[in-house]
């Protein structure tokens, strides 16, 4: 059982929870995730560890409401407990030791690039982050990311920062390089767009994938993704991969597998939010 120690509504549909998980808080590294189970009969939901406080033994999870299970999670109150939190899972992010890195986060992806920017910053790598959302209200982790370096903000409707998609300021930034590496986390279409922009100059680009998962240990094969024409299990081989090799179309398509259940089932269904 893991207790919720703090809760913050970041925007409509996005909740930030701090959860007691001392061992995970102690050893988690950037890019790793946990699988949470709200109750014994709940779905197993993968969530990136957005931050941790090893002294207090807490980890931070950011949950976007995309279905019944994530809604239930987001509705948890301080003092309530989760049935299980397993982790830290997946490979830690590959971080350079020097130079400059770009972190691009779309939507809740901003919470996923947060630990990466944090890890880079701790190593002395110069970080520039670009985050975007539809409107100002949906923009998250702005203050947090600003701590680690330059931050460029954009919104689709121009209600905050520049108007447009994260790829617009990215173009300018890429030209201003050199960049050791670019990290991109967000909707598949956004990650694909970033990878296309970095491809001509062959800038190393790392993306974090969010397929449906169950066990998170490589046992079920449900999280398989196609990378460079080879089948990989995102939970154990990833969740981060070379952005230039990922088959985004396949990822996007497989994410829709249980959409009809989500619509039809009064109880709930598999949603795909691993941020």
């Amino acid at each position, binding site marked *: 059982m893991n207790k919720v120690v703090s809760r913050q509504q970041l925007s409509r549909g996005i909740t930030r929870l701090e959860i007691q998980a001392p*061992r*995970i808080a102690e*050893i988690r590294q950037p890019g790793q995730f946990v699988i949470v*189970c709200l109750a*014994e*009969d*709940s*779905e*197993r939901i993968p969530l990136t560890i957005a931050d941790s406080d090893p002294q207090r033994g807490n980890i931070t999870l950011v949950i976007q409401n995309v279905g*019944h*299970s994530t809604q239930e999670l987001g509705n948890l109150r301080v003092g309530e407990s989760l*049935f*299980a*939190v*397993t*982790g*830290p*899972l997946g490979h830690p992010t590959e971080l350079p030791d020097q130079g400059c890195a770009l972190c691009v986060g779309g939507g809740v992806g901003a919470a996923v690039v947060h630990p990466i920017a944090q890890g880079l910053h701790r190593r002395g790598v110069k970080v520039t982050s670009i985050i975007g959302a539809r409107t100002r209200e949906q923009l998250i982790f702005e203050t947090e990311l600003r701590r680690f370096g330059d931050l460029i903000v954009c919104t689709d409707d121009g209600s905050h920062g520049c108007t447009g998609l994260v790829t617009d300021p990215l173009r300018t930034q890429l030209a201003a390089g050199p960049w050791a590496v670019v990290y991109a986390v967000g909707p598949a279409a956004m990650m694909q767009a970033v990878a296309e922009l970095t491809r001509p100059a062959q800038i190393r680009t790392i993306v974090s994938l969010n397929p449906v998962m*169950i*066990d*998170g*240990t*490589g*046992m*079920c*094969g*449900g999280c*398989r993704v*196609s990378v460079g024409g080879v*089948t990989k299990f995102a939970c*154990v081989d990833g969740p981060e991969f070379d952005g230039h090799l990922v088959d985004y179309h*396949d990822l996007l*398509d*497989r994410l*829709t*597998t*249980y959409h009809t*259940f989500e619509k*039809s*089932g*009064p*109880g*709930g*269904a*598999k949603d795909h939010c691993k941020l």
Partner: protein
Amino acid sequence: MNQLTQSRMPSRQHLPIPRQKMPEQDAAARADNFNEVNLGLTEEAARLEAGRCLQCKKPRCVGGCPVAVNIPKFLGLVAENRLAEAAHVLRCDNALPAVTGRVCPQEKQCEAHCVLGRKGSAVGIGYLERFVADWADQHCPPPAAAISAQGKKVAIVGSGPAGLTAAGELARRGYAVTIYEALHKAGGVLSYGIPEFRLPKKIVAREIERLQAAGVTFRCNVVIGRTYTIQELQAQFDAIFIANGAGLPAFMNIPGESLKGVYAANEYLTRINLMNAHRFPDSRTPVLNGRRVAVIGAGNVAMDAVRSARRLGAAEAMIVYRRSRNEMPARIEEINHAEAEGITLQLLTAPLEIIGDDRRWVTGLKCQRMQMGAPDASGRARPEPVPGSEFILPCDVVVMAIGTRANPLLTATCPELKLNAHGNIIVDENGMTSLAGVFAGGDIVRGAATVILAMGDGKRAAKSIDQHLRAQPPAAN
């Protein structure tokens, strides 16, 4: 001859008593539910069946049992209606008789060696094992917690049959045992793989409760290699037993495997058994319940998947297997049960490609007919394609049940563990790995094998760990 007259016959007059039939749920009714198919022998039938045993001087059945249960002794006690004693004899050698009585391939093990089987039918040893175990669960108190006399601690990785067996044996010898399990529920394949209709989950739960009562600590939701490393466990425990199974599903690498509607059997069965997808939307995890489901493979896993598909409402649930019926590796009882439930067998059929529509949902399986060719060097006949025999088998769900390999998650984080070419952990004759004090057993050592072999490994490892730790100075407290 009816049963009453049979039972009045002198007990040692063997030949006229036929093998007792296992009562089962009606085939038409059970194809719609997940309740157990076999209902268990009555006490009367069990006594009759046990009485068929010839009590051979040199019992060959025992040699056919991987854990060498004293079969004639326990059968003799059943025949005399001394069931508590029978249960004791059984449990001495077999820690999970209610499980193995249901899932062991008896027809290839103990029963294959029964002398009665030469002329007629072998004694139903599996049926009786199950009967005695179920009876004891109802009538005998669980063992009390052993005093942790040794003051020594053993960690076990994985709560499948190998881990559970080792835990029981070690707790009995007075060690403080902690089992680490990656999933939120203990039991390994017994919980997430083998379906309710073959192995009710309450039986697995009962065994786990039994171990808890004996003092074993279960720590679920801990992934060794991630949450803790083997090195960290070594610092905290006096010995370690690794039994993390062979959970890494194989795919065929044919086109179409990423279409929607394609599952590895592990995922399909885990959704149902562990996550209760068959009760969706009352449970929270869904599964695609196809109208026409093709399961590739013919082992126990394939049978479990195809029979689950039928129970989820598939109008047609099919096995697709490239060899002939004789080579099907599943337990014979599962094949018979499957056929009675209306499962169709596409034998001598090899899949070439999974076909999908423009929205990438599965619509069919492109196959090729095969014929059995001449035996190869190993003496095993190889299936060969029949030229020009390609056809499309319409289906909307495809389940791959072609085997599993060693899961590298743990071993990759402990490079000191010596592995073979397949990634399985290498152990010596005592079950010890290349790391002193670290033992391994079950599927992670053997590759996908059986419940009873995993249990045998657990038992051997417990014995070796005991010897290993006795040879060391006592713990400082």
